């Protein structure tokens, strides 16, 4: 009895390994697809970064009505954010500059800034935006909250700050780029996972080899797990390359490697299984690529990529909580910078990510069982 059971498990594991190895071998022979699934995510990361660095320097007038130490720190946070070219002026000069189109926004630090902070009350930061230039307008909308983030990080290292923003310990300055890079990494893991696993699933249908799998007496769940494992191993090349770029090229050093490792794994499981589902449903690799990119970009903008999502408009802030990238960015910000950018906190966010991973694995099994029930030949 025991022997039968152990040979059963042995066979199960053999199927998983064989399936994973097969997918890896198949992918490695297809240079074009290997290239897209490794290069596209990195490209995505670098492209957005470049865009942020070059396009993000918005000429902004700063009107400082408070000369206290906190106000000074806030100005320095804005100057370090890589997002503004700051002109300190008076309120009336700023208005003239705005009308002449020489600046795109006026940020005013009110006279009660230091007082309010000391008393822990909420501060209104008036921001006037010249909305003729949409590009810059968006930059300002994103950059101001980030400057605030950075400011709090320096000003109140040990305090719980206003709104959703909580601060643990800080050993590094965080500016726009450092925050954005981490968000980009999460979305790139998503994109890479979808592309890699989606291709691995769609390839079987496209080439008709799905029959070899469906005709076999091997356990369908073992086949599916094998596909997940194979795609994860392939995906990890792209993720490893991404970490190398972020750490050594951009110079963002993670504070918590252990968190980074665990959360990367969780996100990979979630997105690789999502990719398998997409690939199984669309059955064409040409459809997998645009679908993966088309899914990643809006989710990227929805998820607080440029600053904590919770500070965005209330609709976005609510909607975004139903998808994993939001939590992914939150836990990655913690792993890299020690930030907590959600009201729920690291543990809850991590657990929610576990739930997402489990749900995706379950959903992919349902899809596979359904494919078997309906048959491959009948659409």
């Amino acid at each position, binding site marked *: 009895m025991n022997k039968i059971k152990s040979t059963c498990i042995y066979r199960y594991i*053999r199927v998983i390994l064989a399936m994973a190895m097969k997918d890896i*071998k198949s992918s490695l022979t297809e240079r074009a697809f290997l290239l897209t699934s490794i290069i596209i995510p990195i490209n995505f990361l670098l492209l957005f970064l470049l865009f942020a660095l070059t396009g993000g320097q918005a000429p902004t007038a700063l009107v400082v009505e408070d000369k206290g130490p906190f106000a000074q720190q806030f100005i320095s946070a804005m100057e370090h954010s890589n997002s503004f070219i700051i002109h300190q002026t008076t309120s009336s000069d700023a208005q003239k500059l705005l009308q002449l189109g020489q600046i795109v926004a006026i940020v005013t630090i009110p006279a009660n800034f230091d007082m309010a902070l000391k008393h822990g009350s909420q501060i209104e930061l008036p921001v006037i935006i010249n909305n003729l230039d949409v590009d810059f307008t968006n930059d300002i909308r994103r950059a101001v909250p980030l400057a605030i983030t950075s400011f709090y990080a320096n000003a109140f290292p040990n305090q719980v700050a206003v709104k959703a923003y909580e601060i643990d310990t800080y050993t590094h300055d965080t500016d726009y780029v450092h925050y954005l890079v981490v968000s980009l990494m999460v979305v790139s893991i998503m994109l890479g996972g979808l592309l890699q696993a989606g291709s691995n699933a769609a390839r079987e249908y496209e*080439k008709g080899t799905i029959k070899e*799998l*469906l005709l*076999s007496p091997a356990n369908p769940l073992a086949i599916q797990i094998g596909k997940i494992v194979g795609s994860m191993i392939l995906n990890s090349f792209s993720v490893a390359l991404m970490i190398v770029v972020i750490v050594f090229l951009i110079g963002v050093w993670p504070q918590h490697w252990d968190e980074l490792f665990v959360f990367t794994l969780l996100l990979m499981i979630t997105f690789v299984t999502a990719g398998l589902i997409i690939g199984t449903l669309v059955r064409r690799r040409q459809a997998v690529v645009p679908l993966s990119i088309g899914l990643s970009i809006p989710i990227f903008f929805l998820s607080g990529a440029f600053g904590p999502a919770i500070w965005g408009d209330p609709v976005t802030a609510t909607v975004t909580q139903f998808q994993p990238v939001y939590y992914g960015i939150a836990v990655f910000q913690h792993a890299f910078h020690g930030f907590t950018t959600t009201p729920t906190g690291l543990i809850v966010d991590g657990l929610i990510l576990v739930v997402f991973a489990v749900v995706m694995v379950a959903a992919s099994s349902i899809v596979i069982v359904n494919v078997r029930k309906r048959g491959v*030949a009948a659409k």
Partner: protein
Amino acid sequence: MSKKEKKVFSDGSEIIENNRSLDDQLSIDLQDVDIYDGPVAIRINKLIKRFGNFTAIDNLSLIVKYGEIFGLLGPNGSGKTTTINIISGLSKPTSGQVIVLGNDITKDLHTVHASLGAVPQETALYEELSAWTNMSFHADLYGVVGSDRGKRITEMLNLVQLYERKDNPVSTFSGGMKRRLALARALLHDPQLLYLDEPTLGVDVQSRRAIWDYIINLKEKKGKTVLLTTNYLEEANALCDRIAIIDHGKLVVLPNTPAELKQRYGDIIMDIETTSSITSQLVMHIQNISGINSVTQTNNILKITMSGNDLSSTGNIISLINKESNIKRISQREPNLEEIFLSLTGTGLRD
């Protein structure tokens, strides 16, 4: 019941034949399915498959006996692959019942798969991988493990003479080599039953011969049951113990053997090209010579179908024709599926 009748087709050709009506044949053959009570490998009962409004399989019933090679013969789009897909569990029947090796395929598919070897029409090989990798992946999926795994793969590759090419990617193989490899793979786990969907499609003549030999060996030396589909009467003739012809997903005729099918229609066809057409009286006259099944004339070409190997009447026919016209060319050949169809159903094949 047997009578000679004349059919005239819309293209002007006519056919006179010696036949039972189609309904008679079908009722007898279907009865045959019901009364046979020997060991059955596959039993298909009133199978229907619809894709939307389109009926691909239309009330198909047949049995495949243990240890025989059964051929499903039909033109492109007649429903052969759909039938194979359903009985291998890749596609669900709209209605009807399929029992394979004693298991209802809607319930015990797993058991069926373990003792089934299949070569799909499109081979389903991983072309980017080597022959050996394809075999070893299959071995893992089917639980062919242990010490003799490598030996078994080597043996199968040797059987189809591909061992020397074991490390080459399948994409570098010819159509015939791919079919042979797919066959070797299907045999790897030593299945009782084999499905071969168009086993020689896109295969050159030499390879075809080799594949036929493997298939015949499977039955004769290993006692396997084989269900194959084919477009070629010649192939059915060379391999099959029994055949079923389908078109539009319907059973057209189920003679017991390919030999019987040919006998019904004729073994040999003589094509005689004349300088001018001959009168219908003369056509009738030739038709009445003993050993002649049917005579048709289209555009100065007479097609004469004969039974048996007795060609003694040939001289007689030639002198009869020479009375009305001159002969330009004479050729002799076996009938093809198209002609048998025309004779059995009165309609041509779709392409």
